[in-house]
């Protein structure tokens, strides 16, 4: 895009659009990006992030992360810190795929140990972890059991034999966010979700086996705290969310909010996709509660998939998951609204932080971190495209500038349709195999949509977050095996 003249470059990595740019803006907007990333951003980002700045209760700035691009109402990569008492909650600021997130698992295996079994591992994972549009999970649940799970999250899974207690310690919210109430979700949402626990889904959801080369360990001490200790260590990273369930919850409440927003609460927004309601209103609280069910469903989903991954590795390599030290580093979310306490202009306040396509990145010694990460800061997992690699970072104290938020991935540069016109799934698969990456996908068209060329440069995105001081890199991982829905 041609950067509008009203945009001020505050630092190398921060671009500010003043509140005078558009009628109704209550605060300025800030885009975090390098020069290159900023010039590549689509026009929609500026439109949308400045619209977010008009929302009642927004504090300090409406943010967009370096991997940002336009989305439903809010940009993807959008962060909106909103005053919990005076402000609103908005499903567009959370996203349809509620609590879409990433989980990182370490092993004590090296690349050389895994390579002879790689194809078998990927093939077995492909057959045992359901993926693809409309895929159904291996967990046979009744509607009633599903309603229980959305209230208990990953804790239910551990209680029922899918995983270990320590898995929960290294998950946001300890594996279950308190206050989820299944009476606030519709029957339709239950019907869409009850047989989807244990599924990857499609689109940019995937399961990847990766390698940490010694030259890609940027901070050996923190890497050690996070469990990366062996040269060419093999790790597993997977990305998925709440599937049709989250989508339905978002749709249900967008409709509720559209009905009451103007008539009952007198709230005007520029774009219908920004439908919202006061956070403390009955409707706002109902959505918040329903969103928590979405969070728990996806935490349970990732917990159950983790269990499956451990089973597959164990079956293929002939050793137990404990022997292979398959431990969770962390599980991060990128589509949520979380109630947090932050210092704003010298005063501590309750802030509802909407992060859509953005990751929480708490700095050292912050409340809510597992004990083992109090010194290092929160692990942050940022996935690149299936061709380029992903990063493990840590949250930092200077992250307070974005309410401790950072990027989530490398951001799309072109639509899925354009990617399918430009790239060919089968050819991509062959090319990647030539480069040592074995990928299995449910759909070749889906694979083309995920081509590296359809995404921004992950190194550039990570560089921008580090330069801005909102997260710092610890390890880079290269993909060697990938299962795609």
């Amino acid at each position, binding site marked *: 895009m041609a950067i509008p003249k009203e945009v001020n470059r505050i630092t190398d990595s921060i671009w500010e659009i003043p509140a005078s740019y558009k009628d109704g803006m209550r605060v300025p907007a800030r885009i975090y990006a390098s020069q290159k990333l900023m010039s590549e951003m689509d026009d929609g980002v500026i*439109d*949308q992030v400045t619209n977010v700045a008009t929302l009642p209760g927004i504090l300090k700035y409406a943010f967009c992360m370096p991997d940002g691009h336009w989305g*439903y109402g809010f940009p993807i990569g959008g962060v909106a810190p909103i005053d919990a008492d005076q402000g609103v909650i908005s499903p567009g600021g959370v996203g349809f795929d509620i609590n879409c997130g990433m989980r990182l698992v370490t092993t004590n295996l090296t690349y050389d140990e895994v390579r002879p079994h790689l194809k078998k591992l990927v093939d077995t994972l492909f057959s045992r972890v359901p993926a693809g*549009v409309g895929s159904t999970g291996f967990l046979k649940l009744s509607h009633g059991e599903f309603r229980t799970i959305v209230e208990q999250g990953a804790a239910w899974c551990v209680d029922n034999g899918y995983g270990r207690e320590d898995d929960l310690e290294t998950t946001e919210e300890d594996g279950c966010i308190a206050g989820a109430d299944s009476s606030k979700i519709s029957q339709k949402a239950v019907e869409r979700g009850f047989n989807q626990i244990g599924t990857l889904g499609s689109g940019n959801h995937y399961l990847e086996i990766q390698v940490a080369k010694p030259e890609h360990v940027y901070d050996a001490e923190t890497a050690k705290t996070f469990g990366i200790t062996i040269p060419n260590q093999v790790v597993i990273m997977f990305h998925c969310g709440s599937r049709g369930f989250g989508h339905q919850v978002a749709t249900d409440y967008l*409709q509720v909010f*559209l009905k009451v927003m103007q008539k009952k609460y007198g709230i005007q*927004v520029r774009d219908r*996709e920004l439908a919202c309601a006061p956070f403390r209103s009955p409707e706002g609280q109902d959505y918040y509660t329903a969103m928590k069910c979405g969070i728990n469903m996806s935490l349970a989903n990732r917990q159950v998939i983790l269990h499956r991954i451990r089973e597959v590795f164990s079956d293929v390599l002939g050793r137990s998951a404990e022997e292979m030290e398959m431990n969770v580093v962390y599980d991060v979310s990128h589509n949520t609204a979380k109630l947090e306490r932050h210092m704003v202009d010298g005063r501590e306040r309750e802030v509802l932080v909407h992060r859509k396509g953005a990751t929480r990145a708490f700095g050292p010694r912050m409340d809510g971190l597992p004990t083992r990460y109090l010194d290092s800061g929160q692990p942050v997992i940022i996935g690149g495209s299936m061709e380029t690699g992903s990063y493990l970072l840590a949250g930092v104290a200077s992250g307070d500038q974005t309410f401790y938020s950072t990027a989530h991935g490398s951001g799309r540069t072109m*639509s899925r*349709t354009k990617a399918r016109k430009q790239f060919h799934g089968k050819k991509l698969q062959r090319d990647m195999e030539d480069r040592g990456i074995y990928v299995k996908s449910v759909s070749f068209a889906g694979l083309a949509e995920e081509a590296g060329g359809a995404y921004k440069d992950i190194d550039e995105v990570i560089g921008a977050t580090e330069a801005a001081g909102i997260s710092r890199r610890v390890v880079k991982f290269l993909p060697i095996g990938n299962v795609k829905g």
Partner: protein
Amino acid sequence: MILIAGSLGSGKTTLLQHLVTCADRKIAILMNEFGEIAIDSKIIQGKHIEMTELAGGCVCCSLAGEFEAAIEEIIEKVRPDLIAVETTGVAEPDAVIFDVEESLPQIRLDSVIVLADADAMINFPDLGYVTRAQFETADVILVNKVDLVGEDELDEVEERLDEVNPGAVMFRTVRCELPTDLLFGFDRPARDVSRPPPRDHTENIQSFTFTSEEVFDHDRLTAVLQDLPESVYRAKGFVRTRRGQFLFNAVAGRVSFEACKASQTDLVFIGYCVESERNVVIQSLNDCRIP
């Protein structure tokens, strides 16, 4: 196949119900998941779809796998005359168009219909980006809920939509009621082409017909039919040329000819204020007769 898109609450379900009630053909609806259109119906499990039956032999299917596989399963099990894909949650319209053109040669893609909620557009100054992307792919935009909005406001709504997609034809509707004839082309059973579409809220929709027992020069006739004036939003019928007999369908400039038995050339041309084009079109068609 027709595609139906539109933002939340714009009237997609209402339009689908209208189609199923009024259309005289077997329609299979494909959606991401069953909406209000199919409550209380028994669900039949398929491989890539789940299906429920609707009135008049129509069915509603929800997607349970890959889109192409689902379409092929629908064709095999249901043998519908028309598939109406409600794109929300399935894919963006341009992705479906791409899929159909690339991998489903047995499908003739007819209109892409996008619903605009006139009332909502008046209440919100910005057109959302997700919504905008849908309007950009439309052949037809149904400006719905016009009963809730004033005449001046309607003009403004149409102007804003025109900016996003100058090529699309717009019809003003109340509860999505419009002659279904306007929404899709012809199918195999012989149709009464000379009957113009009934007028309800679509007052400026006009039509004229062309009939001839003569045989036409194939290349010249098809050239004329591929180059109709812009105001002719839809044209359909049968043609007899030296090369044979064909079923002809055109919507928003997209043209198709399928081999089909026809006793004579019978065409209808529909669009906004097309009476003014009547003479020119009829003359150029007549010029294609073989002397």
